[in-house]
């Protein structure tokens, strides 16, 4: 019973922790501009993260090695360093966006300017990382993130023509008001939001922090195979609610407050309160993950002691990187940089850096010297290889598309 409860809690945490500011913004924007015509990109991204997160968890449990450790080993120090710099930069943008997201959620509940709240949020993020045990931290914000299920309730309350909604999702086309380029750009944004590199850095490092062993492989599978698809459904609910309420009103999402508007419109004050708690939890949880990921990737590349499971004195450089990253993201956020724009660029640019992160995972997951008899099967390798090809293509076309569409504006 205790084991079942642990697995169940893990699944709930995976659902609640799946969505971050990138998913909130990208799904709302595409819902208003493209309806459900880009739902396939969410599905594609969710399958991709399932395939590679399962591998990461398995590698961490059996080899006891997190992703960036393997990146350096397999790609070599030079390519590893380039990957580190690119990943750190994207992770930094994401951390800035998440900190601003938390501040905006608090601002929407208090009407205090989000700029005044950013330093407080940054301190709170550091304090939680410093004081709260890893598993508690993961569970609290993951479970609170379940409040975002209110988007699914919103869709149900609006009572859409389900047949038409599914038809649009299953027979996608480029709407007349958009171009093929903007359609492709937002497809990449949704894909990038689902497969953000920090997710695997955190997932694999977290598995090592929680000292996973072969016995935890079932938990890993349950989290990934049940939790992530349900988290993906949450993303689709955000898209559908924006499609149903914001789209017909002619609203184009450019602020985080607009993401919550469909819920307030359909469910009233209680719904609004719940969705703000959900946005707070999702962005706070992701801020913790990205701040920790900054420390993880730098420490793992440099070969320093890392993690919350060792005493801070032993992992002082890891904690210093985390602290400096939070401080720098706070300062960047205070420059009045648009958090939604930062989010958009972080998820699109992350798509460009994905192959360098995922390729070493695929190699190690096939290496019997690390994995014993738990290497990838043929089917998994086929799917993972197809995804690797997709990732390489995306990494080539992302920057040109960013320029052609002027960041998705036209």
């Amino acid at each position, binding site marked *: 019973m205790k084991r079942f409860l642990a697995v169940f809690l893990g699944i709930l945490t995976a659902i609640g922790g799946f969505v971050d500011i990138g998913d909130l913004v990208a799904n709302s924007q595409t819902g208003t501009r493209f309806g459900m015509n880009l739902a396939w990109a969410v599905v594609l991204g969710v399958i991709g993260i399932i395939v590679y997160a399962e591998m990461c968890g398995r590698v961490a449990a059996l080899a006891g090695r997190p992703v960036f450790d393997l990146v350096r080993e397999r790609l070599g*120090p*030079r*390519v590893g*360093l*380039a990957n*580190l*710099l*690119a990943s750190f*930069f994207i992770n930094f943008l994401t951390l800035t966006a998440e900190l601003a997201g938390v501040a905006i959620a608090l*601002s*929407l*509940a*208090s*009407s205090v300017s989000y700029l005044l709240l950013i330093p407080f949020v940054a301190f709170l993020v550091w304090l939680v990382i410093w004081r709260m045990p890893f598993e508690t931290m993961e569970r609290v914000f993951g479970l609170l993130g379940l409040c975002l299920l209110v988007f699914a309730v919103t869709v149900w309350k609006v009572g859409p023509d389900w047949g038409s909604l599914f038809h649009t999702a299953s027979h996608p086309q480029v709407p007349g008001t958009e171009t093929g380029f903007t359609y492709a750009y937002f497809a990449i944004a949704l894909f990038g939001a689902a497969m953000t590199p920090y997710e695997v850095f955190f997932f694999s490092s977290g598995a090592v922090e929680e000292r996973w062993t072969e016995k935890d492989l079932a938990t890993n599978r349950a989290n990934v195979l049940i939790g992530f698809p349900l988290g993906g459904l949450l993303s689709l609910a955000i898209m559908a609610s924006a499609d149903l*309420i*914001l789209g017909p*009103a*002619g*609203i*184009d999402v*450019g*602020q985080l*407050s*607009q993401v*919550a*508007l469909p819920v*307030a*419109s359909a*469910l*009233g*004050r209680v719904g*609004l*309160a719940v969705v*703000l708690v959900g946005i707070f939890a999702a962005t706070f949880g992701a801020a913790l993950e990205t701040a920790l990921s900054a420390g993880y990737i730098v420490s793992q590349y440099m070969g320093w002691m890392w993690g919350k499971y060792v005493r801070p004195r032993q992992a002082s450089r890891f904690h210093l990187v985390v602290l400096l990253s939070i401080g720098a993201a706070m300062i960047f956020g205070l420059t009045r940089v*648009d958090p939604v*724009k930062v989010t958009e*660029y972080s998820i699109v*640019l992350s798509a*460009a850096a994905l192959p360098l992160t995922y390729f070493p995972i695929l190699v190690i997951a096939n290496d019997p010297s690390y994995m014993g008899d738990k290497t990838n099967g043929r089917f998994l390798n086929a799917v993972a290889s197809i995804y690797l090809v997709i990732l390489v293509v995306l990494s080539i076309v992302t*920057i040109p598309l*960013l*320029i052609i569409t*002027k*960041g998705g*504006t*036209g």
Partner: protein
Amino acid sequence: MRPRSMARSLVAGCGVCSLAGCLAACVAHPVGPARTYAGYEGKAVTSAEAAQSSVATVQLVASTAAAGKAFGPYTVVSVSEQEDGLSAVEGTFASIQPPDRRADALRDELVAILSSAVDHVADVRIAARRGDLADLDRVAAPLRADAAALDAFVARHG
């Protein structure tokens, strides 16, 4: 790794990051200079479309708050954000040099619509800050005319 290759990788990585940062910063501005009437008209339509979204958001926030479905802080912050966005659109468009006299007329037409919309959104923000949430629907009513004017502008010039 040798120090020289490490430094080279570091420089290359920094270059990639800087390039990405510059690109991100460069493409964030939908409105740049215009040299022809057609280019100016295109920028006017882009500005009007951005304003349409802000006006529609304020209308929906106002009706939601008036129906008792949103609390004060959310309403105030949401409306203020749209007011800031709308003012920025107006300011940016007004700062573009019209290339000829025909463009002057276009500029006057759109600036008048945007200015009216900014004033009416400000009225909604003031009422929301005073806690008159139940009355927001009435205060936001003039935005219907602004929305219609923006729709007509986009239809004519888009």
